[in-house]
């Protein structure tokens, strides 16, 4: 019994350490693009490092939209894939960017799953036809629609657009495991008493 307690404690500790050093975070982003329906523009995804030396990646999937994807995307840095199929971005370079011309429809939905070290950030942005004027954003400084920062607590979602509805995965899997480990320990203690 004692050995089991120690094992569970170690597992819980490892999970806790893992959850703080490496975050795992998912979010469904539903964008109302109806105000731009029929207009030409751009969609941009990027994952860039900060001071962090640890690796991080972003998987973009579940793309669903009545928008028209125009031509091939422009990939900068460590980026693979093309919408509507999955796109993966890694933080190996300063700027890891997916830039896709679109003709906007009414909706644009996608899912982003982030994992890796704290100190990396993901951004979803939209631009007008000139590729430099931000649209669908309230961010007057940089023009991002949504950003996600991986940090020591997991991740911080910054929804900077009135047209974006963000539905994060409530609790990261690691936290579920940590929680279940702690609950298990508590149960064992009660049984002992």
């Amino acid at each position: 019994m004692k050995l089991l307690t120690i094992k569970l404690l170690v597992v819980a500790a490892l999970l806790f350490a893992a959850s703080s050093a490496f975050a795992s975070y998912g979010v469904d982003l539903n964008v109302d693009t109806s105000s731009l329906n029929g207009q030409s523009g751009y969609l941009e995804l990027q994952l860039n490092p900060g001071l962090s030396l640890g690796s991080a990646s972003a998987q973009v999937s579940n793309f669903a939209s009545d928008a028209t994807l125009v031509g091939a995307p422009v990939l900068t840095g460590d980026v693979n894939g093309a919408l509507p199929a999955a796109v993966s971005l890694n933080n190996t370079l300063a700027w890891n960017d997916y830039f896709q011309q679109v003709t906007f429809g009414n909706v644009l939905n996608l899912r982003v799953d982030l994992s890796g070290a704290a100190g990396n950030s993901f951004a979803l942005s939209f631009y007008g036809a000139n590729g430099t004027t931000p649209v669908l954003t309230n961010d007057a400084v940089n023009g991002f629609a949504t950003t996600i920062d991986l940090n020591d607590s997991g991740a911080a979602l910054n929804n900077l657009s009135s047209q974006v509805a963000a539905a994060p995965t409530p609790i990261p899997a690691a936290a579920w495991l940590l929680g279940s480990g702690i609950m298990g320990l508590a149960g064992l203690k009660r049984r002992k008493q």
Partner: protein
Amino acid sequence: MKFANKRTLRSLALILGISAFSTSAFAAISKKPYLIYENVPTSMTVLWQDNATETTNTISWGTDTGYGLGSVTVPEYEATHLHKYRIGGLQPSTKYYYQVADSGSGLVYGTGSFTTAPDQSANSVRFLAFGDTRGTPFALDGVMQEMLKTDPSFQTFALQAGDWVASDAESNWTNEWFNANPNTVAFLNNVPINGVKGNHEDSSGYSKFFPKYYPFPYPFIADKATDPTYHNNFYWSFDYGPVHFTVVDQYSGYAAGSPQYNWVVNDLATTTKPWKILVYHEPAWTAGTHGNNTTTQTVFDPIIKKYKVDLVYSGHNHNYARCQVDNYAQAGSDTIIPQVPYITNGGGGAGLYAVDVSNTGAYKHVVKAIEEYQYMTFDVNGSTLTMNSYTATKPGYLPNANPNYASPFRLATGSLNTSTVSTPIETVVLKHFNDVSSRVGVASTGFLFSRATQKYSGTVTLTNNGATDLAGNLDLVLNDLTAGVTLANATGLYQARPYLAVSTSGLAAGASISVPVQFSNPANAKITFTTATFQE
């Protein structure tokens, strides 16, 4: 007999009259009173020179022109009739008036005023700075004209960067430095001047007239073996309020391990003043026309770094230059990255020299340089030192188009152009910060690129990991920022490194604060830097 007696009496009267006239004609001052500060805030030293031996010269002083505080007879103290008197028992930071006269003839030789140095405990002080005044008295008078127009609070002391005269000869000192032009006389009468020997005060190592006219308290002045009227080792130091000046003689041995070098090291290591200024004539880092003095770089740059000298003050090049070595590319063959300003302040009157502002070759370190007659003001206030540099010429003067060096100051009539103006060159603020980096954790988000701004942005978060609150202003300094990357929203520069003002109200223990950062990064290079957190 009666007639003969009358003739005798007339002759006697004539002789007496001629004699009296002769006395007043020959008994005259040749160099009007001037001032030096000998490192005692309760004193001021006044010097003047007569053209013959006089035993009845007096100096009187007071807090007004009644000169009621004291009066003494001052005999000459050397063979060429120089008089020197240190007025003591004064109050620091107090204005006094003085008069030099000859009680025998009743002639007044000169009057002036001065403000004593601040008390040693003072944490603020102001002063003027200029240099390389040699050769063109009219231009020197023009620069002094402008310095006399500054806020009087700066006219309490002036720092001279060397090359006072073209040659260390009696005639040069008389005709150049002690010229009879009105602003020069007024400046010397009223502003104590301390400074450093330049190469034109005899670069051979020994000087005769520089120490004669400026007998600063050199601790190790030595006679020349073959002619004891010549001396060397004109290195010395003094305090002025919160500032410590260490003055180096580059024309006496100063190699590592030499007596002068050891003295400089000890002087910098032992001063308790918060601000340290190293003074030598030939700049280690400059903007031309004379190149960088690499010998001085090798000898002094390591101790500048080690003893946290705040700035280096020089002349030699007849222009204004502010240089700073912040990386190895700028340092060239030097192995030290001093990261402090090297000021060349040599536009005090000598013919101007061109500057190299190309930031290439031997001049990669030039931050600002201009070929102009100029001077500077220094304003030290607690943890802040503000340097202002000014041109001092007539409006529209173009140095390269005016081979006559006096032209910016001389009217067609030959008299001084009193409509010269002081035009700001630049303002540089140095700050002393308390490094609290060990108590503060720093983390960042990723740096995301905006196509709208063409810049990378993110946030940096500081966390007070210490057990106690951090009070006051907190600044984050970015060290070793990736080449080609600049911090676009920097609050300013701290020793050439960008910094951000993070908080004006401190940071409580355990608390965090985030600040936005924005980088210009045209090459899309990986943005890396280390940080230091400073408490103002």
